């Protein structure tokens, strides 16, 4: 798209000033006065147990306690795709940390004290901690009523088992294709549970007034999904539940859907009309909200002697935890993306969403893609090592291109994947000799490619309302969350571009479901595309109204008019200019003396136009998803042979963003994604011992720090336009961490010849593998 003014420019973020001055307000910063109550939750100490009896009488008698809630009263079912949990645990607990009761009291200390006074009698049950074991007929059943739960039409729960969704792909004839292969590699990989650790812990405040109107202030990525799920569960009319979300202090997925809100509203109902605040401690944040679910992956890839992938057979066992707010859809995404970004004619893929007695799996940046690419991209590396093919050339050769048939039988749209692979390799210096390692160290390089689609139901829609003010400034109402990714800036740029005004004059608001238009959720890296389309439509709607007004005023055709720098101009008559100020509210007078117009309000709504259902037995269909963002990343490391410690030297990455609405924002997302990819690849792991978290603090849950970041980063992008995207754009926020960890593991192999198949790539694992390698070489 050429000729744009502010779309494509690296303008300053619209929220930056508020954030550097301390003016930006987050949920916990909102004040509710002296009447506010504080909530604490009593949580299950057992991974799997029957609740035999709950006695809350002592807690209720404690002075300062204003409300106690349990599953005895609040046991309606809730869930995004599968309604498999209750607001509070009812007959059973299914993970350590599950809310059993809640207390609202005058102070946090009283609420905590009251929780200790609640007596719960449990009958412990055998538990499941491994997703593959969950499928064993001998395994205890975690949800006996799975067959009775309500669920979305595109997931397939298996009643009587621990499988909450089973997605399969059957394409071509993999069995025979493998026979034709010159090289077949089959390996098993493991990805542990992670926690997103946004800097702002979950916090929610609910107020339920005497008229039955409920307001919820919450740190959520999904204000409208909150309203949808909570109003439904609590049988409230949707316009009597108002959800307000200020700025978010990061989310990365764990603030999508409903988590703590399900517990705070019941307390507010019982303590009406006092507002009740529930705030997660950092310790709770690690296992009581959402975690990234674990994965056991079996990947088999076969190639012919020309280095062409002929077949894949992949099985993904997702350790989705006790309930599946998003797990079922992550499983689905892992199925329809199961091959990675390659042209594979013959595919057998089975993705199981397995109930276990682990914390609840939620979405995390990448939505299953970092996990499956961890396996796929390493098997490809193994094939390249074994056959002597260059990992870059091999990927470029097999990369999906526009017109190819995807794993689900659809036609791939145009994509810059091949360019991304070559660019990342070139920026890393793939073809140049490696620098000389210091004594005791080895240098290694690795590369990985990726693809990811916005994983969402076919009706995930976006709305936008654009209001002009007297001075021609604009208030843009949307409900996509600004959680750091810069979406407010991008929306201001899109609106300003269409309207011919300065982007700084567009103020984008955080949502209030009473006043802001519908937005499905801030997930799936879908806002630039989906909400961007709605904003573009709203701006075009306002523009049409303005030009109509001016054309009537001047008695000319609207086609002759344009808006430039806040003025309507006549392209053929320079004497005709009209400032947008005043006219956008008060209108203009026609030739015949009549006043026309009124407040200009633009309206936009967007729904994905052409996604189709996939066949239950084969996973095949004309269009599985709206589009795929593709890319690649290459890593150069130095690793210490004695300690196993990795020093990241250089990272180069390239993604096809369609159109960078704000190139600097793309670069910032890329650097942030590299950080998160390295952090999860090198360190992060939520250690669960029989369902109990063992490292739920920032001191024990290790993340990368400023000291671990690479010396050199080369973030780049290509722009193969997304035909149905605003100005050709598609999303890139999550993608940037997807290939990091497998590229890192491939670099470790390149340096030392050891293959780490279990994430993260810790120094201990490297040393262990080196020892095995040395022992094996001695035996030989």
């Amino acid at each position: 798209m050429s000729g744009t003014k502010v779309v494509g420019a690296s303008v300053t973020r619209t929220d930056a000033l508020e954030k550097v001055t301390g003016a930006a307000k987050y949920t916990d910063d909102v004040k509710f006065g002296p009447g506010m109550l504080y909530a604490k939750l009593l949580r299950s100490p057992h991974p799997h147990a029957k609740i035999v009896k709950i006695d809350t009488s002592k807690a209720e008698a404690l002075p300062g306690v204003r409300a106690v809630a349990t599953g005895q009263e609040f046991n309606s079912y809730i869930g995004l795709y599968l309604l498999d949990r209750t607001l509070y645990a009812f007959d059973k607990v299914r993970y350590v940390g599950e809310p059993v009761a809640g207390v609202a009291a005058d102070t946090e200390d009283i609420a905590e004290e009251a929780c200790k006074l609640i007596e719960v009698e449990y009958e412990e049950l055998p538990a499941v901690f491994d997703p593959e074991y969950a499928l064993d007929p001998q395994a205890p059943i975690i949800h006996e009523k799975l067959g009775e739960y309500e669920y979305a039409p595109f997931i397939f729960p298996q009643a009587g088992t621990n499988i909450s969704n089973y997605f399969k792909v059957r394409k071509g004839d993999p069995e025979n294709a493998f026979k034709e292969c010159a090289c077949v590699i089959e390996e098993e990989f493991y990805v542990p549970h992670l926690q997103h650790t946004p800097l702002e812990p979950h916090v929610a405040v609910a107020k339920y007034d005497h008229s039955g109107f409920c307001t919820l202030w919450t740190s959520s990525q999904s204000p409208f999904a909150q309203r949808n799920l909570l109003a439904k569960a609590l049988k409230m009319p949707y316009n009597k539940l108002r959800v307000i979300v200020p700025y978010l202090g990061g989310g990365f997925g764990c603030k999508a859907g409903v988590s703590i809100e399900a517990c705070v509203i019941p307390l507010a109902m019982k303590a009406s009309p006092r507002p009740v605040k529930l705030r997660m401690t950092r310790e709770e944040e690690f296992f009581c909200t959402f975690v990234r679910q674990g994965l056991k992956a079996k990947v088999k890839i076969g190639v012919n002697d020309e280095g062409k992938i002929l077949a894949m057979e992949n099985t993904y066992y997702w350790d989705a935890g006790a309930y599946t707010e998003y797990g079922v859809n992550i499983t689905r995404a892992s199925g329809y993306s199961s091959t990675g970004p390659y042209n594979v004619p013959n595919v057998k893929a089975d993705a199981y969403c397995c109930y276990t007695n682990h914390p609840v799996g939620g979405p995390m940046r990448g939505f299953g893609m970092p996990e499956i690419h961890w396996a796929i991209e390493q098997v490809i590396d193994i094939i390249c090592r074994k056959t002597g093919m260059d990992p870059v050339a091999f990927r470029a050769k097999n990369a999906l291109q526009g017109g190819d048939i995807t794993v689900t039988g659809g036609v791939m749209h145009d994509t810059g994947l091949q360019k991304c692979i070559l660019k990342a390799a070139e920026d890393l210096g793939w073809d140049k000799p490696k620098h000389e390692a210091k004594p005791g160290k080895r240098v290694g390089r690795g590369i990985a490619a990726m693809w990811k689609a916005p994983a969402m139901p076919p009706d995930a829609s976006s709305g936008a309302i654009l209001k002009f003010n007297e001075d021609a400034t604009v208030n843009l109402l949307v409900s996509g969350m600004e959680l750091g990714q810069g979406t407010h800036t991008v929306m201001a740029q899109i609106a300003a571009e269409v309207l011919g005004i300065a982007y700084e004059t567009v103020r984008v608001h955080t949502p209030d479901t009473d006043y802001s238009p519908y937005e499905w959720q801030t997930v799936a890296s879908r806002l630039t595309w989906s909400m961007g389309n709605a904003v573009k439509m709203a701006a075009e709607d306002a523009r049409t109204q303005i030009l109509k007004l001016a054309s009537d005023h001047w008695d000319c055709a609207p086609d002759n008019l344009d808006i430039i720098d806040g003025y309507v101009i006549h392209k053929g008559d320079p004497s005709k200019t009209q400032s947008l100020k005043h006219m956008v509210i008060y209108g203009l007078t026609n030739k015949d003396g009549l006043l026309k117009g009124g407040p200009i309000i633009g309206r936009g709504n967007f729904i994905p136009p052409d996604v189709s259902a996939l066949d239950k037995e084969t996973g095949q269909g004309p269009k599985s998803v709206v589009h795929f963002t593709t890319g690649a990343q290459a890593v150069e490391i130095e690793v210490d042979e004695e300690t196993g410690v990795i020093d990241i030297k250089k990272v180069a990455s390239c993604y096809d963003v369609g159109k960078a609405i704000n190139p600097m924002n793309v670069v910032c997302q890329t650097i942030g994604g590299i950080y998160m990819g390295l952090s999860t690849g090198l360190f992060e792991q939520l250690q669960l011992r029989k369902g109990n978290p063992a490292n739920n603090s920032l001191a024990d849950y290790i993340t990368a720090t400023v000291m671990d970041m690479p010396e050199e980063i080369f973030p780049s992008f290509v722009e193969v336009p997304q035909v149905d995207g605003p100005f050709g754009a598609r999303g890139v926020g999550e993608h940037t961490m997807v290939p990091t960890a497998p590229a890192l593991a491939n670099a470790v192999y390149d340096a030392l010849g050891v293959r780490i198949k279990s994430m993260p790539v810790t120094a201990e694992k490297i040393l262990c593998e080196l020892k095995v390698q040395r022992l094996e070489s001695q035996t030989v």
Partner: protein
Amino acid sequence: MKHTITLNVNGQKYTVDVEPQEKLLDVLRDKLDITSPKKGCEMGECGACTVIMNGKAVNSCLVLAVESQDAVITTVEALHADGKLHPLQQAFIDAGAVQCGFCTPGMIMSAKALLDTNPTPTEMEIKEAIAGNFCRCTGYKPIVDAIQSAAAVMKKEGA
């Protein structure tokens, strides 16, 4: 037993009654409505609550309110008091060092404490100064760049 303390925050004197176990962070946020220091962990691990106390960057969640008797405390709100951005604030904006913004006030205060005592820090000194400030969005690099460029601007302005 309540204690009455007097402290100077952002150039203003406040007298407040506090509980013996009350933290400076809670006094700032709940009693003085100064909300730029954030609650990220309440255990001194994340740095989101960093303020400058008597010239040093501290985790205000680890400072007992009674310890702040007569203390001079600066939060990010004070840096913009005269309507002009501090070079660090401007540099954070320009370098793309702000994403979700939750770490930003604490990060800027750690950086300010560094530059106040060491106007020409090395890259490693910058990294050490913000090593206790957690950021999940930016990948830190833009933050280090911002602090470097703010130091250069401040040096120029001071010269």
